[in-house]
């Protein structure tokens, strides 16, 4: 697709270019100049656009930020960025409210009243660093420090890893709920075992004729929703004369399912059965391109279609129909999504779904499955792949048993994001010293002794390799678009300063004066690559263009076919899902799902996102419980009746939404609300269904089986109006008249 660079884009880019001499260095060096001598690109009332990277989810979309008189005013997608192509989701749009959030920490603070007291005493950064250095120096053993990370900028992950390894400690443990709900860890593991590459596959949705999505909410929060939605638009109406066909398998009719042509309310944990049955039918009936089947017949050796149909409660005829649809299409993709990963049999289900792509020979074909091509960006790819829940459980055990003396937490909020049954809250209490780098007092930061707030992403440096990537190898760069509002400090710089004070091999491992030095050194590695969309004469002008464009990417698409030569030919196991909670006393499956606006809860402190309604229920500002009309009437509850949802591990109360698109044996609750701490917009609002989840894991992948908990429901007899946009009296009807 050729793209005309409009005058507007050009203006944006010029504006970005002048950053070299303008605002950005002042951010870096903290030179305070009176505004009567403004930076040269700042004209009163004239907008300047800076390119950077969105950090509200791990996708890594490129953004441009409109800055007027030194204040960021609007975030838009970077039209040149190969991943999101100028588009942005609701969360990305709301990023300004992180920057301007009234509940941000304005400086480093010590929780002087004891943990949880929320009594904070401001600290000078030198004092704060003294404490950190002192805590590190007095450790009896470098392994008694642990670093727990979530959504981290890649450069910070690199710096942290370097810091910890030179200090003699183990690498950061990466875990966050958003990634867990996406099944990121399981997906990476699946790719590694199938294609020998621990990466997130790219599904070429734009060119697909048929898409079978198994629990992948790819139009909402799953993986890279903006680029996937963009591809979806093309799949729907962009193809010449064609219109792709989408079937979505999920126990609840999600927004992705609403956009699908068919929604199959599948029994939780039975997704794999359907995929296996479809594969078996294709094989048995030699549907589609039968020549490509031969190498995979062994995979389906153990599969009996009738058994699968019984287990999944989907009639054989329907399975046959799907098999034919899938096999007859020229380009058909099956996507194993987050919902599968959240089951006890997640690993095998995902394998069964991915195997359909093998069977239909869609690996590495247009409209099929790809991996992102690193090209010259290989050196950048040390992305923090989220670790499994099992890894984290080991840390929790260590914390409980007193093996950790110092816990550093960046970009994750485990107290909120982990099931209560995981025991993180108790574990953190037994760690002698906890330091958080959070910009907000969230549940975890409230349990920290010291908070060293990082800048928000609009004030800081960094880069990110989009994962799953775009068709073009790409790195998104991040730069400050405004001077930091408060006396916060970049965590990268904090680590560098600490390394310098610690001296010795740590200082040698981190020789940079600040993170920008490090980034500049890293970025200019790409200087001189002939593949780039732009090139520069000197490294310093490359560095300018790198920030001006918001990253680096190749001019042309470079697809990368996954290597399937190493696939082990053995039958796919049929594994039965296991659920926590007796079926008799806990008759319903709990189906927590990430909110399209609040994601895993990290958006809950942004009023724009709180006020943006859930697309399906149109509810905002709260938590609700979705019940099938049949279930609701059997419980004797109606809209807005408050019910108590009880699992073996906890309970919550929330009003009911009668939801016609959910299985009668499933109860869905959105994730994201229920914060105890996290600023005025998030606090004391709704409930967190993750608290109810049992800490059972998928034995294959070690991922948290967050969808494998059963619950029971008790009416409370109370009513609470939900903030819905939709009129209940309208009964979901279209315009009349």
């Amino acid at each position, binding site marked *: 697709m050729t793209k005309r660079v409009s005058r507007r884009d050009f203006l944006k880019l010029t504006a970005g270019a002048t950053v070299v001499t303008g605002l950005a260095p002042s951010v870096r060096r903290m030179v305070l100049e009176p505004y009567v001598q403004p930076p040269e690109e700042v004209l009163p009332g004239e907008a300047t656009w800076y390119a950077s990277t969105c950090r509200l989810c791990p996708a890594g979309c490129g953004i441009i930020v409109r800055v007027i008189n030194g204040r960021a005013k609007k975030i838009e997608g970077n039209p040149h960025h190969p991943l999101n192509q100028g588009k942005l989701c609701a969360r990305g749009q709301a990023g300004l409210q992180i920057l301007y959030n009234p509940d941000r920490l304005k400086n480093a603070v010590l929780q002087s009243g004891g943990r949880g007291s929320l009594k904070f005493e401001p600290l000078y950064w030198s004092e704060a660093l003294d404490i950190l250095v002192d805590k590190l120096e007095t450790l009896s053993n470098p392994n008694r420090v642990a670093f727990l990370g979530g959504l981290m900028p890649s450069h910070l992950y690199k710096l942290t890893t370097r810091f910890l390894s030179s200090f003699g400690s183990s690498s950061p443990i990466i875990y966050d709920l958003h990634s867990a709900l996406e099944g990121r860890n399981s997906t990476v593991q699946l790719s590694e075992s199938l294609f020998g590459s621990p990466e997130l596959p790219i599904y070429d949705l734009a060119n697909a004729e048929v898409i079978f999505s198994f629990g992948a909410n790819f139009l909402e929060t799953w993986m890279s929703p903006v680029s996937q939605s963009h591809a979806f638009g093309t799949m729907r109406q962009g193809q010449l004369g064609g219109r792709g066909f989408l079937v979505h398998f999920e126990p609840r009719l999600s927004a992705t399912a609403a956009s699908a042509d068919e929604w199959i309310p599948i029994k939780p944990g039975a997704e794999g059965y359907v995929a296996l049955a479809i594969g078996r039918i294709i094989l048995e009936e030699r549907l589609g391109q039968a020549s490509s089947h031969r190498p995979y017949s062994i995979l389906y050796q153990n599969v009996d279609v009738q058994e699968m149909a019984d287990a999944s409660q989907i009639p054989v005829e329907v399975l046959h129909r799907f098999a034919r649809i899938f096999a007859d299409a020229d380009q058909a993709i099956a996507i194993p999504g987050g919902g599968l990963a959240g089951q006890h049999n997640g690993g095998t289900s995902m394998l069964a779904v991915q195997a359909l792509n093998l069977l239909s020979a869609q690996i590495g074909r247009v409209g099929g499955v790809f991996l992102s091509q690193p090209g010259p960006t290989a050196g950048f790819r040390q992305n923090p792949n989220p670790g499994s829940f099992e890894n984290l459980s080991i840390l929790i055990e260590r914390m409980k048993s007193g093996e950790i003396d110092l816990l550093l937490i960046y970009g994750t909020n485990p107290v909120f994001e982990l099931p209560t049954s995981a025991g993180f809250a108790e574990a953190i209490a037994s760690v002698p010293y906890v330091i958080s780098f959070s910009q907000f007092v969230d549940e975890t930061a409230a349990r920290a002794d010291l908070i060293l707030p990082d800048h928000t992403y609009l004030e800081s440096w960094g880069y990110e390799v989009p994962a799953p990537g775009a068709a073009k190898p790409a790195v998104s760069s991040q730069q400050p678009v405004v001077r930091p509002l408060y006396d916060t400090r970049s965590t990268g710089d904090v680590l560098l300063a600490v390394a310098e004070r610690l001296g010795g091999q740590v200082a040698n491992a981190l020789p940079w004066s600040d993170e920008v030095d490090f980034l500049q050194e890293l970025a200019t590695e790409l200087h001189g690559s002939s593949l780039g969309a732009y090139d520069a004469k000197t490294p310093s002008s490359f560095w300018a263009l790198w920030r001006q464009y918001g990253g680096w990417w190749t001019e042309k698409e470079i697809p990368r076919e996954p290597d399937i030569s190493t696939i082990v030919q053995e039958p796919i196991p049929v594994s039965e899902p296991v659920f926590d909670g007796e079926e008799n006393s806990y008759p319903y499956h709990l189906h927590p799902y990430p909110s399209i606006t609040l994601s895993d809860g990290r958006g809950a402190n942004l009023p724009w996102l709180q006020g943006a309604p859930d697309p399906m229920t149109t509810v905002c500002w709260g938590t609700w419980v979705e019940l099938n009309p049949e279930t609701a009437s059997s419980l004797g509850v109606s809209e807005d009746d408050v019910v108590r949802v009880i699992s073996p591990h906890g309970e919550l109360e929330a009003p009911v939404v009668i939801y016609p698109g959910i299985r009668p044996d499933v109860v869905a609750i959105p994730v994201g609300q229920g914060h105890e701490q996290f600023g005025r917009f998030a606090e004391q609002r709704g409930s967190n269904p993750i608290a109810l989840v049992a800490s059972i894991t998928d034995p294959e992948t070690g991922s948290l089986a967050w969808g494998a908990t059963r619950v029971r429901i008790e009416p409370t007899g109370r009513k609470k109006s939900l903030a819905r946009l939709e009129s209940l*009296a309208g009964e*979901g*009807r279209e315009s*009349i008249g």
Partner: protein
Amino acid sequence: MSESEVLAYPEDSSAAEFEDRLLLAERTSSEINQAVLQPMFRTSWKFWALVIFLSLLVLWGLFAWGYLIYWGMGTAGINRPVYWGFFIATFVFWVGISHAGTMISAVLRLLKADWRRPITRGAEAMTAFALMMAGLFPFIHLGRVWKFYWMLPYPNNRLMWPNFQSPLMWDMVAIFTYFIGSTLYLYLALIPDLAMARDHTGKWRQKLYRVLSLGWRGTEAEWHKLHRALSIFSVAIIPIFLSVHSIVSWDFAVTIQPRWHSTIFAPYFVVGAIYSGLAALACILVIVRKGMQLQEFLRSEHFDALGKLVLVAGMAWVYFWFAGFIVEWYGNEPVTRELIHEEVAGSLAPLFYLQMSANLIPIVMLIFKKVRTTPWLLLVATLLVNVGMFTERVLIVVGNLQRNFMPFNWGEYSPTWVEVSIVVMTFAGFALLYTIFSRIFPYVPVWEIKEGRLRYTVRRIGRLLVPTAAEIE
């Protein structure tokens, strides 16, 4: 006195009854004067208690209004799509009430209905005060009331002009004209009585009446001019009277909101206004008669006649309501169907049946003379009418806004304390103004009664007593 006519008179009736009815009893003019003036001076503690109570209600309502202005319209129960609520419904109600005064004085004056005479003043005062209350609501419901003057066509350097396409501008013009017209009408008819009061009172009252009576001496020329002025006003105010409620109805009817967008709305509103206005007048007369001991002037024949008027207006209202309803019901258009369903069988059903029964039961009651002539029964019937008509206005404004073309954007409405306080404020304010008026100005138009006495005499023709009426206007 021009031509005289002879009324046929039933033989079995006694002349005494007839005399009584025409106020021809042994009363001198000055006795009549005193009978009207005395109640004005009698102010018991009950009166002051009433004034204080009403004032408190008004003050509380003013506070609520201040609260509404300070915090915004969100303190009221209105929302999207029910952009208009109690305020507009009450506005329509008060404009409706105001119609009775003109109906009684202008229309009945033109029709030479003599029974109107003792009640014209009360009716005209009701018009003026009801319009004052109605006129508050366009301000109250403005989101930015401090910018109300932008609705006035005043010259300004930005050449900005109000939009005369908007029914709100028509409203403003019509109500303003009607208010000026009806106030002048009230005042003109007051002049001779003010002069009479001037001649029979002292102190501050005399000073007030002297100024207000404009030096009236009661000369033939003055009478002649007064009669001419009143005749002109009577004719001129009738189109205004018809236009005001028509225009109020067009606030709704010019939109494309189903059930508002109706050609019958204007006459339907006018008839409804007359119905509720006359009923309100009957209510007030019953109460004032009791409060000011005006049994001598406000007699059962007045109530009887008024009751008949209410009855006729009520039946006309039913006709117009039915004509509108059945067409829409049979039309069965989707939104209209929803609206009718909501009214007849949905959440608005209690209001709808309250409205229908409160409007229909009085019609049945008023068929009986016993009801029309028994003050408390009449009070019950006419109060019911007003409950019914208020409910009807709420149903028209709120009920029809709750449902629209987009079921996603349907809504519900319930008033808040702010709205209730302000609505109560206007009722209290009306009562307060009326109460004070009745103590300052002669409630019964003395000159009209005297004129009526002049018009009627009983002549003896042979052995027969024959009542005669003269054309004097």
